[in-house]
């Protein structure tokens, strides 16, 4: 059940996208987000879509995986779109009942929003699908390293992040197990009244927290036994190296952003 969550998952592969420098990938993802949110006309969305589709194709990751990542937020998306349709007015009126109006403007805004958010999710999923959480953390650490001078605990933060990432699958599996075990004792987790369900949530959270603390304690000892003493003087197995490929990819991304900006200027 919980195992179906794909956001934040990593699918090892050998594509161009997989081999890009993660630091560049993060920057490109940020540029991409700017791109889809500054674009005001359908052409801009088209440009964004071309960029997204190209990247997805290059990554060699199955479309199904992206569909899976969109699925969980679909209900939320549809409700928001629906409200937008009802409450944003302007342009041609298609339907009118009391204070509710469906207008061309409302429909446009809704469609725009849905497409943008889907692209946003696909784009950021692409980052996590093609970049191992560890490299991602390394990249964040590297990008934030200038802050070290300001005494900002960059290494510690990155270490916490990577440990959190490491333990997500473990804890998800554990949660599944605890849920099954409590269900076997007749706890109503996904059925029954709301009050009962909330009460039964406690029966899952307490064991989960206890186990997380136990794990943390044991992990800390294991880390100390392997001579961990903070970020000072550490070397890394994984070296971040940028190559010409990364600069070319970045140039492409910037080019797409420029296109969007130009189209915006032409149409405004």
């Amino acid at each position, binding site marked *: 059940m919980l195992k179906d969550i794909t956001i934040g998952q990593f699918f090892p592969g050998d594509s161009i996208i997989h081999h890009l420098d993660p630091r560049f990938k993060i920057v490109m993802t940020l540029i991409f987000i700017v791109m889809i949110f500054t674009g005001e006309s359908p052409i801009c969305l088209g440009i964004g879509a071309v960029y997204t589709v190209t990247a997805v194709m290059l990554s060699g990751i199955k479309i199904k995986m992206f569909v899976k990542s969109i699925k969980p937020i679909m209900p939320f998306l549809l409700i928001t779109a629906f409200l937008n349709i009802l409450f944003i007015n302007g342009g041609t009126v298609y339907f009118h009942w009391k204070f509710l109006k469906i207008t061309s403007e409302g429909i446009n805004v809704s469609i725009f929003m849905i497409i943008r958010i889907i692209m946003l999710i696909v784009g950021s999923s692409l980052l996590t699908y093609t970049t191992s959480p560890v490299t991602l953390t390394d990249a964040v650490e590297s990008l934030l390293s200038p802050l070290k001078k300001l005494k900002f605990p960059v290494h510690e933060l990155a270490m916490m992040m990577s440990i959190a990432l490491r333990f997500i699958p473990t804890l998800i599996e*554990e949660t599944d197990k605890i849920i099954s075990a409590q269900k*076997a*004792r*007749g*706890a109503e987790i996904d059925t029954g009244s709301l009050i009962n369900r909330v009460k039964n949530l406690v029966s899952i959270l307490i*064991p989960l927290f*206890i186990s997380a603390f136990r794990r943390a304690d044991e992990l800390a000892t294991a880390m100390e036994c392997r001579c961990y003493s903070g970020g000072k003087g550490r070397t890394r197995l994984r070296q971040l190296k940028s190559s010409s490929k990364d600069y070319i990819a970045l140039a492409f991304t910037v080019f797409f952003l420029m296109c969007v900006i130009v189209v915006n200027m032409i149409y405004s």
Partner: protein
Amino acid sequence: MAILKTEELTYIYSEGSPFEKTAVDHVSIEIDEGEMVGIIGHTGSGKSTLIQHFNGLLKATSGKVLLDGVDIWADKTKIRDVRFKVGLVFQYPEYQIFEETVYKDIAFGCKNMGLDDTEIKRRVLETASDIGLPEELLKRSPFELSGGQKRRVAIAGVMAMKPEVLILDEPSAGLDPAGRDKIFECIKNYHGKYKNTVLIVSHSMEDTASFADKILVMNKAKVFCYDDTVNVFERAEEITQIGLDVPQITKVFIELKKRGLDFEKEVYTVDYAKELLLKYLKKGK
């Protein structure tokens, strides 16, 4: 009459995805009332997936589970009652303990059954004594107890629901020999006292041989064999060939047979081996 029966039970994980895997493959077995059955197999042989079908935690991709002759999924709304009739104790059950006292934790299942307080109290006290937890422990926090005691608290929580079928997934995992013996002793006593059906999943043929009336050997999602313990041990060599360990003593007797010393009996306990050897030695003299 069979209390628990499966008909062509099949379960496929992540059907249609690249990770698709058949975990249980057309399993048809019958478990009679009052039997003590050992379920053996590798990790990934499907034994843990199979038992989660018995109380409706998992729903089969195809096939049926019949409890007292009734399909457990015949009425979806009654599936919770099935869980009270078929009690399932997971592996490392001490990790699901959450109440602030031992008493409350044992009572959790009974409360969910909607029993009244006097009945709950009666059951908790009875189960605690059955499983060797002294009454003064009941007021303590379960988190202060030793590993073996915690395990027994968790098992008691399911026993107190008085299920018709009790299933335990590797009840002795991670325990030392004394802890393991204590758990098996408690389960045997429980079985002796209430005469209900008990299923125990285990990796160890040695442990299983010591309690089981019947043994179900699972291999690669299928039933490898399901028979009385003696008959299963007749196939001890085949069982070692699928990579499962048989007791050391059984291996010795297989080897003896190869060397021309045939006792014409399946040996799986030390005491029996001793008697057999003594008998033959006397005859020889």
